[in-house]
């Protein structure tokens, strides 16, 4: 693919490759209701507010969780949640 295409691409966080960075755009509503653990709100309170930079560090095999760097700390995030976090891949990754 061309570099132009690679920039400004919006993908779920889980689709980032190791070392790739992106910016959080939005968080999709989960299956559960309201304010439970794992809700969009709870994810934001862990620091993933829209506009935040994230870097993919690694992901576990068998559709396991991912590890990202956010706000100077490392977070492990279950695949289900990571698929609901929409990020824009940073241009310099191309």
């Amino acid at each position, binding site marked *: 693919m061309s570099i132009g295409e690679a920039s400004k691409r919006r993908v779920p966080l889980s689709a980032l490759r190791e070392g790739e960075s992106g910016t959080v755009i939005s968080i999709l509503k989960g299956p559960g209701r309201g304010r439970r653990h794992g809700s969009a709100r709870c994810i934001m*309170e862990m*620091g993933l507010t829209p506009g935040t930079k994230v870097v993919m560090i*690694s992901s576990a095999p068998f559709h396991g*969780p991912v590890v990202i760097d956010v706000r*100077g700390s490392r977070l*492990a995030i*279950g695949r289900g949640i990571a698929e609901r976090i929409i990020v824009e891949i940073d241009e310099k990754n191309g």
Partner: protein
Amino acid sequence: MDKIIRVALAGNTNVGKSVIFNYLTGLHQHIGNWPGKTVEKAEGTLHFKGYNIDVIDLPGVYSLSPYSLEEQITRNYIVHEKPDVLINVVDASVLERNLYFTLQLMELGRPMIIALNQIDIARKKGIDIDVEKMEKILGIPVIPTIATKGVGIFQLLEKLIDTYRRGATNRGNYIKFRKIIEDRIEKLVNMLESRGFHYPARYAAIKLLEGDEEIENEIKKLDVEIVNVAKKLAGEIEKITGRPCHEVIISERYEAASKIASEVERPVFSTRPKLTDRLHEVTTHRVWGYITMISLLVLIFYSVFSLGGYFSELLNILFYNSLEIFFLKLFESGIIGKLLWGSAEGVIAALTVALPYILPLYFILYLLEDSGYISRVAFLMDTAMHKMGLHGKAFIPLLLGFGCNVPACIGCRILETERERLIAVFVVTLVPCAAETVIILSLVGKYLGFQWALLLYLFNLLIILILGRFAFKILPGEPTALIMEMHEYRVPHLKTVLKQTWFRFYEFIKIAFPLIILGSTLIKAIEAFGLLQPLSIMFSPIIVDWLGLPMITGITLLFGILRKELTVILLSTLFGTTNLIEVPGFGPINMIVFTVVAMFYIPCISTIAALVKEIGWKKALMISLFELLFAIGLGGIIYRVLTLFI
């Protein structure tokens, strides 16, 4: 008379609260549970400069919104119990995230000081923090500390006293949101204050705008109008910003935290050894991670089993040889002697399990947690554990269950929600512990061959999976997804780990020993009064007719409640032979049925005690009863199926 200061330690998880707590309180602490909750409560006291200081170590949390039990407990404690001074423990190496919580704590408006902890780790990461500037921005005292070395603890205490003396005036500069939000907060604050609401008004106002249901419900009791106004104001903010109101507030708080962090952090030359990063990479690697994990676990189990087994045997011999003779001499064979010996046997049984198995496994659990390894295991095992509706963290307690169910039950505390803890303790009680492994090996393994023993073991794991899924399906609530901070690896602080181990062990002993002594005296009494025969006749419809076992095995199962391995030990005694295969009516099929029943029929009394401690009497009894019925049902079915085929 000494004055009492009530102090609460609050902060994210793994910031060093427990190390500081242990430093402050030494051996004057009490570990229990929050009333009616499965969350641990640690309290302690110390004397300093003529003050009696009561310290409480609040659960580690990331926000003051009620997502989890821990968060509810933390905020309710601060709001309702109003500690005199809050000590916010902050991890200097992850300042931005920690400050997000600090800013929320400040909204509560209690007198507060900050222990800026782990400055050694921050420095290794290349971060130095301008403490004076931080104090100035936040308007509250900041004391740099290295808890593991005791650095800064004295100053912390001095500041604490100082802050207490100055009292309510010292509340810091809480952050100001942008004007459209501040104006609305002010409106709500005015309404709340005019109604004399007991909550800190600014906190309540912000939470109302964030749509916090718990606080809405409380304020509704006071004045529905305030909640309606808040909803309207939140709607206005959403209209202006085009984003949900809670999102705007969370974002602004994080922005403020980020700004403060960047203002006070000064980059210094990083001496960070890349070792911890390398360790993280290896232990979370898709191949090496699993290899490391398995090797480590095999090592742990091998050493605990072999050393524990040896030690346990030694204790047994020691107690029995010395004590039994002494007892029988003292009381001859009178009834009192027998009963007392029953109690003594209970104590022996408890000690020979507790010392060699429970204590070391507790220690290993806390050691792993303290080092940060548990979160790596959780990461690796998340997918597998999700099959049972648990998340990766549940793997460790489950695993400990293979050693002993007791520390495993206690270990379930590391899980996030009440529901998850309940599923996990239930599953844990089904795990074949060391004693159950002994039964499998010494009965089926010895007489029918190793492959049958292995088969039974696998069958047990299958049952765990099925029942785990079953519990996951029927219990109300949603499964929790994994979202957790992965801290740097750290060298565990041995003193804290030892204290944690000891106090938790002690708490267990306090509950378990009376129960065990009572149980074993009761069973001895049954024996002494000649009730064994009538009882086994009473049970015979189940034992003989349904399970197809010799009548006498009912008695061994009764004793097995004290200690599972007693079931096999007593078989030899009661049948009067060590070659059990010769016993008429106890063929291969009966052995398998007996072993299956012994594996599942009820958690042993120590485990029941641990269950009671973790989830309360009612649920503990329910689980025990369920497993009893399940084991009997399963045993009967297996008996019939096997007779059909063999």
